[in-house]
Each structure stands twice: as structure tokens, then as C-alpha cells.
């Protein structure tokens, strides 16, 4: 019965929406057709005005940096929400103690030595690669957001290698939350710097440097670093909140064996 009513709902809405959809499809511009002047304008002026070879980063961290500040705040609030929802309460602890033994059986077997060596060996290159993506955001594709997420996945490799103690030590470190807050605070701070020096929030007020070198493009690099700090801190603490839910029991089980 439910299936039939669902199909009926689909048939009615399809009957109404399909002609509208077809109608709108007829009016679409040609494939690859570019309408607005802004992209061309930015492409032609960005390199000269901002000494940045990556126009996308210039848009995100200079021309529309206020947008990015808003996005960073969204991520910040989302992570706070996750941490708040998944925080441990007194009742949960007792449940966990009761069930720690029976859950141990269903857990996956510990990783083999080959997996451990390979994943642990990848941690260093991954951190370097993340830093590279962060620092070269104004020269090549990438930037604070992408590099920050790459950096945040480094502790996950430690987790995959089965080293739960180290993983917990890294992710539950106070520096993670502090870094997240510092990142978003410094982002706004750089914005206020522009406000005081040039009367415009997030104005690019630092020396622009040589086009194509790592230290160039003024505040774009600084804002990239700030958002990398905020994003990696946010993702690590979110991952920690999620993993903590399943981790606690395994930690207790491990201790029991030793």
C-alpha cells in the first residue's frame, strides 16, 4: 500500500514537473557558453593586481574573503555542534562498561605488520604534502581548505595502523581545539588589520611580493594559513568526536589483554 501511494505521488509530481523541466532545458545556453564578464575581468587583472597565479584563491581569499570567513564560521559552528552532540554523559559510561566485552568479539582483527609499516611510513609524506598544498595555494590549485583537510587525515593513518594510544594522544590534544579557534580568530584579525590600515575589512594590505613565489600575494597567503589551521583543527576534532564513540571500548579491551 505504501509503495502504491508513493508511486502515485511520483506519477503526479512527474506529470507536473516533467514539462516544466523540459521547458527549462530548451532555454539553456549552449554547452560551454560563458555569459558573465566577471571571470574574464578577474582573469585579466588578478595576476597584476594581486601577484597571484591562481585566480580561484584570489577570489576566495581576497575579492570575496568575507564569504570565506562566513564559511569558516559555518565549519567552526558545525564542529562545535558535533562535539556537543557526541559529548560523553554519565549514563553512557555505565552502558559502555557493561558491553565492553561482548563488543570486542565483533571488532575487526588487528592490522598486519605490513599495513602498520606502510601506513606509518605514509604519515610524514602526507603531512608534507598537506603543507605543500596549503603554502602553494596562491601559485597552484589548492589552498588552506584542501590542505587543511589533507593534514587532518594524517592522524587517521595512525588510527589505521592500529596505534590507538598515539591516535588518541594526537587528536584529543588541547592544541587541536586551540588551533581551530586561533585559525578563525586570526582570519578575522587579518581582516581587521585591513580595516585599520586601509579602511576596508579584509583589504589586502601586506606587500605583494614576486608573482609565482611562495611568499607572495600579501594577505592571501596569511589567510590561507589561518584557514588551514582552522580547517585541520576542526576536522581533527570532528573525527575524534566520531571515532571516540567506537574507540572507547576497544581501548578498554586492549588494556584488559595486557
Amino acid at each position: 500500500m505504501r509503495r502504491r501511494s508513493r508511486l502515485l505521488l511520483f506519477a503526479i509530481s512527474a506529470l507536473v514537473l516533467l514539462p516544466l523541466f523540459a521547458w527549462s532545458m530548451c532555454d539553456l545556453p549552449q554547452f560551454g557558453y560563458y555569459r558573465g564578464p566577471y571571470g574574464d575581468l578577474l582573469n585579466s587583472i588578478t595576476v597584476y593586481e594581486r601577484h597571484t597565479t591562481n585566480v580561484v584563491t584570489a577570489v576566495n581569499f581576497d575579492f570575496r574573503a568575507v564569504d570565506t570567513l562566513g564559511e569558516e564560521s559555518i565549519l567552526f559552528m558545525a564542529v562545535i555542534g558535533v562535539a556537543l552532540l557526541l559529548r560523553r554523559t554519565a549514563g553512557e559510561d555505565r552502558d559502555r562498561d557493561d558491553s565492553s566485552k561482548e563488543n570486542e568479539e565483533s571488532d575487526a582483527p588487528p592490522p598486519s605488520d605490513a599495513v602498520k609499516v606502510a601506513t606509518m611510513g605514509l604519515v610524514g609524506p602526507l603531512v608534507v604534502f598537506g603543507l605543500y598544498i596549503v603554502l602553494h595555494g596562491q601559485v597552484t590549485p589548492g589552498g588552506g581548505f584542501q590542505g587543511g583537510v589533507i593534514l587532518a587525515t594524517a592522524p587517521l593513518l595512525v588510527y589505521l595502523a592500529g596505534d590507538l594510544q598515539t591516535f588518541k594522544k594526537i587528536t584529543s590534544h588541547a592544541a587541536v581545539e586551540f588551533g581551530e579557534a586561533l585559525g578563525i580568530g586570526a582570519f578575522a584579525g587579518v581582516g581587521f588589520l585591513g580595516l585599520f590600515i586601509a579602511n576596508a575589512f579584509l583589504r589586502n594590505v601586506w606587500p605583494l611580493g614576486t608573482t609565482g613565489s611562495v611568499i607572495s600575494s600579501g594577505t592571501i597567503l596569511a589567510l590561507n594559513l589561518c584557514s588551514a589551521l582552522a580547517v585541520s583543527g576542526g576536522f581533527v576534532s570532528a573525527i575524534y568526536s566520531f571515532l571516540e564513540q567506537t574507540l572507547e571500548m576497544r581501548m578498554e579491551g586492549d588494556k584488559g589483554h595486557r
Partner: protein
Amino acid sequence: MMLLIQVAVLVFVAASGAAVVLTRDTTSQVIGLSFYGLLLALMFLIFQAPDVALSQITIGAVALPLMFMLALAKIHRNEKQRAKLDRGSSSSTEKAA
């Protein structure tokens, strides 16, 4: 030649997107979602948006499936516990009867 690659990747994205929707088992659905995220990143790269492709790889193919996986692990664990508790309570009522 470029057009051919573009059409191919669009078809692949459409097919894998449909496959994700049609998968019923949640765990394999998340794996499919991760694969779909990778294909989407490839599509962005082919359409000359490497910045978006990088974001898509990190978020769509890694972070999002990871969070789904962890949430599913938690849910399955809870279900298993509940099933065990139910079995325990039913056996005790049988004894009482």
C-alpha cells in the same frame, strides 16, 4: 577528443550516482558514494576546475564517507546490543513461564 572524454566522464558520473541511489545496503552504499566522489573529482578536473577537484577529493571521497561509516558503525553496534538484550529478556520470560 576532449568532447569524447567529457561525455564519457559525465556518463560515468550519472551511472555511479544512480548506482549509489539504487544500492540498498548502507555499508556498500557508502563505499559507492566514495567512488562516486572520486569520479566527480575526475569530472571537475576534466572540466578544468582543479581547485574544486581537490576539495571534492578531500571532502567527497574521504571526509564524508568516513563520517557516514563511523555513524553506521555506531548504529550497527547499538542494534547488536539491543538484539542481545532482547534475546536475554525473552529467555528470562520463558523461564518465568
